[in-house]
């Protein structure tokens, strides 16, 4: 779950880290009062969106007084921000962070994240902050340093010394950096982060470190105990994805025209891949999971069918914990409820496969049966091809 900049900064501030004075507003009318509370006259208004490149796209504006703050906020709130990361459809801005403007002399990069191969927390550092880390990695990989604090202990003096020297910090800044690094490490663990990215970690005109922008992502598996981060787990999901989650289904909408219903994440991906292999495109990822009920299967079928791009539905089930007869009943129910407007290809294998196939056959519905994964993908791709002609 991604946090907005203002939510992330609230966590950082609470942890005692130096972030600029600021406050979020959701309507332009709040600007004047908010600035008064903050004791700010001029400053910067930052559109809150899960994307980089906000500045270039016009999502960050300066203001000199409360009237200007209100003007820029009213332009930002409700606008659709299109950046190099959002794609052409952009993202709608619903909130603006009003913040004091920091005069800065340097921009550094500091991220805390997981190194999967090492099964350890990693610090990623660069003296060239302010741009995407991918860009630094591409152009000047020698300007990136990875350091591994010892699990359970956090960064020690030797690691901090190495980091400060790599970043080119003076003695005072190095001490501040040590404090920042230790606090970020603790925050990463205590808040179940999967990413804590400070970019830039800036040096201001007084020579002090300040955390100017942040990207914070919380581990979705830990949301049961991370209930006060302010984040919205559904913020980036499409309505179908939110609806699916209620039934324990894992659904991701894609751009193709073959709707898929599969059990297991790996097989669901492999089903998308094989559809693409035979020249068609998957309309979605959908894992019904291992313990779905008949009702959830019916729901899954309805969600797939409601996607207007879907020209064919492919059901691919390898029953393990999931029983094929449950899938069959769910599909038959769904078709009886909503009708079947597109070709339906079904491949069943594994636990209770005979019962499942018998139900499908007895249903009298116009279902295209497939013998195996290959047969299923070929038949599904063919229906789409025929439809084109």
């Amino acid at each position: 779950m991604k946090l907005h900049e203002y939510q992330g900064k609230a966590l950082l501030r609470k942890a005692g880290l130096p972030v600029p004075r600021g406050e979020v507003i959701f309507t332009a009318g709040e600007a004047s009062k908010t600035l008064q509370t903050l004791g700010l006259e001029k400053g910067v208004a930052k559109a809150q969106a899960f994307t980089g490149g906000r500045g270039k796209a016009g999502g960050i504006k300066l203001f000199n007084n409360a009237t200007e703050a209100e003007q820029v906020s009213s332009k930002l709130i409700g606008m659709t921000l299109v950046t190099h990361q959002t794609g052409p459809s952009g993202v709608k801005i619903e909130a603006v962070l009003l913040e004091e403007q920091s005069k800065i002399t340097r921009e550094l990069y500091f991220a805390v994240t997981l190194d999967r191969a090492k099964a350890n927390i990693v610090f990623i550092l660069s003296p060239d902050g302010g741009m995407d880390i991918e860009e630094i990695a591409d152009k000047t990989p020698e300007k990136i340093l990875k350091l591994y604090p010892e699990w359970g202990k956090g960064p020690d003096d030797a690691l901090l010394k190495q980091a400060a020297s790599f970043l080119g910090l003076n003695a005072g800044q190095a001490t501040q950096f040590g404090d920042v690094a230790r606090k970020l490490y603790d925050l990463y663990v205590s808040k179940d982060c999967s990413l804590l990215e400070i970019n830039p970690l800036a040096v201001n005109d007084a020579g002090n470190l300040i955390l100017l922008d942040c990207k914070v992502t919380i581990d979705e598996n830990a949301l049961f105990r991370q209930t006060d981060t302010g984040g919205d787990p559904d913020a980036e999901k499409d309505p179908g994805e939110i609806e699916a989650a209620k039934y324990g289904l894992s659904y991701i909408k894609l751009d193709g025209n073959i709707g898929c219903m599969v059990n297991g994440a790996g097989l669901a991906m492999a089903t998308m891949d094989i559809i693409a292999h035979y020249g068609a495109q998957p309309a979605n990822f959908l894992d019904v999971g291992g313990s779905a009920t008949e009702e959830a299967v019916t729901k899954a079928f309805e969600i797939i069918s409601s996607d207007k791009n879907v020209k064919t539905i492919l059901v691919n089930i390898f029953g393990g914990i999931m029983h094929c007869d449950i899938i069959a009943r769910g599909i038959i129910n769904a078709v009886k409820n909503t009708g079947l407007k597109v070709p339906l290809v079904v491949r069943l294998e594994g636990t209770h496969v005979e019962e499942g196939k018998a139900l499908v056959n007895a249903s009298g519905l116009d279902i295209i049966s497939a013998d195996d994964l290959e047969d299923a993908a070929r038949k599904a791709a063919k229906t789409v091809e025929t439809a084109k002609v």
Partner: protein
Amino acid sequence: MAILIDANTRLITQGITGKAGLFHSQKCRDYGTNVVGGVTPKKGGTTVDGFPVFNSVAEARKETGANATMIFVPAPYAANAILEAADAGIELIVAITEGIPVVDMLKVHHALKSKSSILIGPNCPGVTTAGVCKIGIAPGPIHKPGKIGIVSRSGTLTYEAVHQTSQLGLGQTTAVGIGGDPVHGLSHVDVIRMLNDDPETEGIVLIGEIGGSDEEIAAAYIKEHVKKPVVGFIAGASAPKGKRMGHAGAIVDGNAGTAQSKKDALRAAGVTVAETAAEIGRKMAEAMKR
């Protein structure tokens, strides 16, 4: 021979009084696994369907001589269940539970460094030595004793590979689902090493997916050490960047962990890469003839 589990495996189930825990304990017993009991705190002294229930893993081990455990404990408590099993000296810990926080798994990973226990999973289907012993949730009947070793991050793709190799008469020695989480116990390379050393295993299927670098690390090992034929399959070539595809670990971050980079690494190591999941068995049969 096979690897990890055999006729000497004595299994307990942590969370045996839960619906899934009991159901799969029964299925494992039906398959022939020696399921010697289970653990549910505060329910010690009772029995469920003939399985004696204990309050702790230590007690269960003392009373039953258990040397393996499968964990169905809910995600918020699962990490502690793994640590409890390790503290009790259980040799093989198979964690089926899905949804354990990464920070909890980091804690487990570092704690296990000083223990002798082997961890498989979490978020995995378990391990099956065909015809002999099954730990976990895989459908038993699709397995046929034979000569192929299988290692996979995905449950249903494991079944797919097992089914195909059974249908083609190759059969399996041991199939291991290592799980779909970013921080986990045995990795591809660990299992490949075991299968390579196992005289009964004549061919190896490696199934990976987008995210992380487990497959690349395994490829480097295969290139150096493995003479047996290896068939690889990587799921997720058509998945969009930056989206988590069901499994917590299945995500392409920036340009790292793509299906293409994994396939390239495997090919460079001499592995036959199956282009679709439907041809895993066929490719294995072809590779065995060479």
